[in-house]
């Protein structure tokens, strides 16, 4: 009697574990890495909105610009035979990509944006101008590297393979963790902690927050606006390149996809409260998780959890995967309507 009961418990436990692993594998891990990539983008969009006070429509293309140079340097290092062994070569290329991107944004600021800033043009004007730079950036990327899909990942692809995991644990469901996902998470944590340390503890960071809070008061207390603006652009370039390169490593690099990523990035920034980098950081995960949670087919999950005679017939998918983008945009619209300052109270840096 006890043996039978034990066997039943064992089976139940296995089912529960299988169900959890299933969710981990298909929802949690992918959403976490996608969310990190969005978060990096959303933070810099939010920063630019808070300090320079306009919607930066070049966001997606700036990311593709940085990624393009990372790829070019990766190829260069690969041709020289420099590599990191099991880690992707792109990791050494990222700093060089960042430097080029910093030069590019500073040049753009000098040639284009500074004029409107000194003239105190309305934010709408600056947003339009950023559409002009979006066209130019897109053209540069496409002329240099072309519009095609490119993969530049090298090194070890998986940290845990699905089969190995199954063998190791004896479960039915495998858990596959790609090395890019771990790298993404790791890099995001480091970059974001440095950024928040910078914003909260250093003098420049504090002056940036003051400038975002109240421009006139900040100028009155002797904060150099040029320095604040320059630092913002440098941070934007760093975050854009890292976020873009991580996305490209995880999936692939295609200029059009990057342009499209601008939309969920904006959604993340606004959902988190635009002008509030920490909100934007969390907003990235909110968007990523809701996109994947709402479009995942839960059939298998419930097969594990429910007794056999209750097994579901349909796919149990709330929305078809085609509506992935639509999910994040609908969340955005709802947030805009009911809480325009975002979930985490925006516009206070």
């Amino acid at each position: 009697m006890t043996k039978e009961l034990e066997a039943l418990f064992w089976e139940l436990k296995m089912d529960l574990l299988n169900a959890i692993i299933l969710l981990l594998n298909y929802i949690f891990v992918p959403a976490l890495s996608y969310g990190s990539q969005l978060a990096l983008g959303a933070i810099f969009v939010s920063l630019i909105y808070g300090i320079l006070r306009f919607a930066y429509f070049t966001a997606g293309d700036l990311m593709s610009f940085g990624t393009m140079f990372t790829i070019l340097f990766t190829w260069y290092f690969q041709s020289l035979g420099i590599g990191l062994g099991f880690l992707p070569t792109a990791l050494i290329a990222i700093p060089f990509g960042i430097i080029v991107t910093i030069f590019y944004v500073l040049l753009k600021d000098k040639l284009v944006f500074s004029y409107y800033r000194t003239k105190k043009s309305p934010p709408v004007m600056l947003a339009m101008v950023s559409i002009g730079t979006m066209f130019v950036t897109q053209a540069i990327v496409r002329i240099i590297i072309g519009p095609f899909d490119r993969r530049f990942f090298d090194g070890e692809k998986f940290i845990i393979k699905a089969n190995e995991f199954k063998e190791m644990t004896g479960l039915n469901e495998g858990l596959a963790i790609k090395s890019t996902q771990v790298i993404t998470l790791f890099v995001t944590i480091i970059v974001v902690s440095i950024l928040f340390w910078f914003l909260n503890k250093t003098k420049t960071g504090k002056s940036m927050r003051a400038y975002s809070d109240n421009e006139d008061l900040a100028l009155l207390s002797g904060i150099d606006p040029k320095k604040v603006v320059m630092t913002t652009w440098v941070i934007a370039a760093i975050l854009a390149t890292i976020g873009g390169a991580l996305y490209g490593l995880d999936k692939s690099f295609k200029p059009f996809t990057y342009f499209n990523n601008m939309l969920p990035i904006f959604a993340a920034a606004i959902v988190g409260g635009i002008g509030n980098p920490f909100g934007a950081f969390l907003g990235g995960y909110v968007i990523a998780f809701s996109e994947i949670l709402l479009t995942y087919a839960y059939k298998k999950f419930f097969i594990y959890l429910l007794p056999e005679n209750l097994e579901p017939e349909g796919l149990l998918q709330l929305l078809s995967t085609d509506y992935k983008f639509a999910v994040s945009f609908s969340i955005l619209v709802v947030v805009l309507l009911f809480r325009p300052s975002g979930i985490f109270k925006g516009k206070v840096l």
Partner: protein
Amino acid sequence: MRNNLDIIAAYSIMLGLIILVGFLQSWSIALSILCLCLISAVMTIGANIQWGYAGLINFGIMGYTALGGLAAVLVSAPPVEEAWRAGGLNILLCAFIIFSMIFIIRLIIKKFSKLKNRNYIIAAIIIVGLILLRLISAPAIESIEAVNPATTGFLGGMGLPIIFSWIVGAFFAGGLAYVIGKIALGLRADYLAIATLLISEIVIAVIKHEDWLSRGVKNVIGLKRPVPYEIDLQGKEWFINLVQKFHQGSLNLISDNLEKQQALKQLVIESSTVFVKLCFAGLFTAVVIVLLIITQKALYSPWGRMMRAIRDNEEAANAMGKNVVKQHLLIFVLGSAIVGIAGAMLVTYDGLFTPGSYRPMRYTFLIWVMVIVGGSGNNFGAILGGFAVWFLWIEAAPIALFLINFFTSGLEETNALKVHLIDSIPYFRFLMMGVGLLLIMRYKPKGILPEKIKRV
């Protein structure tokens, strides 16, 4: 007359450029550029009403264009009776449920505004409604899409002449704009821009993936034209005579009779495409002129003055007793409806509906470049912007080729840089658009033909 000299000059230059293309490349290309210029002009009129008259940013132009296109399909495609039998009833039932849901929710919001747990009731209604919709529509959609999926697999349209869709498209787009305006118009300018951009992406996602309605990415082809087909024209007696008369001079030079017949046949084939495009251009010009007259009248009417007052100082206009919210909504709907007309015209011209081709770059941002380059607040300017930018967009490739050859003339033909540059010619159009937009915004922020305000 003297006041309008710049307008006349700008338009003559534009027309001259198109004629030049006719002489240098071919009349067929020149006319298709002209047709698309005219369609772009309709779009810019719509965008200009919103931005130039009222200062509203609408980055959802792509969505309204696609809705106009959908209207063209729903009006002109022949109905698929089998699909209607398979699931038409359920779809109608779904539509009824949606309408009753909206009605009930409106009723609750209006009548029971003091109810404590009102929001929970509304949420419950929405959730129950969605589950009902899902249960009713899922089998219907499946059976509709199973009806001959290679050629139909959707409900089809009404089989009416496609010209009607221009009006229907306007109503579709206007209806959507009403809903969006109701929710989003209270937002700040740049929030509104982002919200409309994202909503238009949702519209495209729906059109792309609801196969029962629009065939989705499988495209709808072979929509009936409002103008004659080339093949029919080539067989018509009067058309051949017309071509003969038109080319009398060059035909007379050929002495051999057989050769003359051959040449005539060739000419008839060529002229038939030109004739068809001329018909299209005539129709589109009529639309543009009608819209231009209406918008021009509106701009200089008391209503237009009120709109400008609202644009320039919302608070003051409000203080003067003008209902800013209502006027904003009105102009949002009107402008979007005009864009919807353009969307239907575009599908009419192409004869096919391809939801996959609606991209924000081409249908939203390019239109904005047109409005800003041309001159916001001035209808003539907006139309000119549509012409000039579309012309540049198409002719960017030949211009870029010429420039590359000019600047790299010192290099060899096989030089890697030169080959790479020539391979990436199509992307120079983005560069030209971007640089053009930046230059105009910097040195002529009011556009080529700036807004003129008549003093009464």
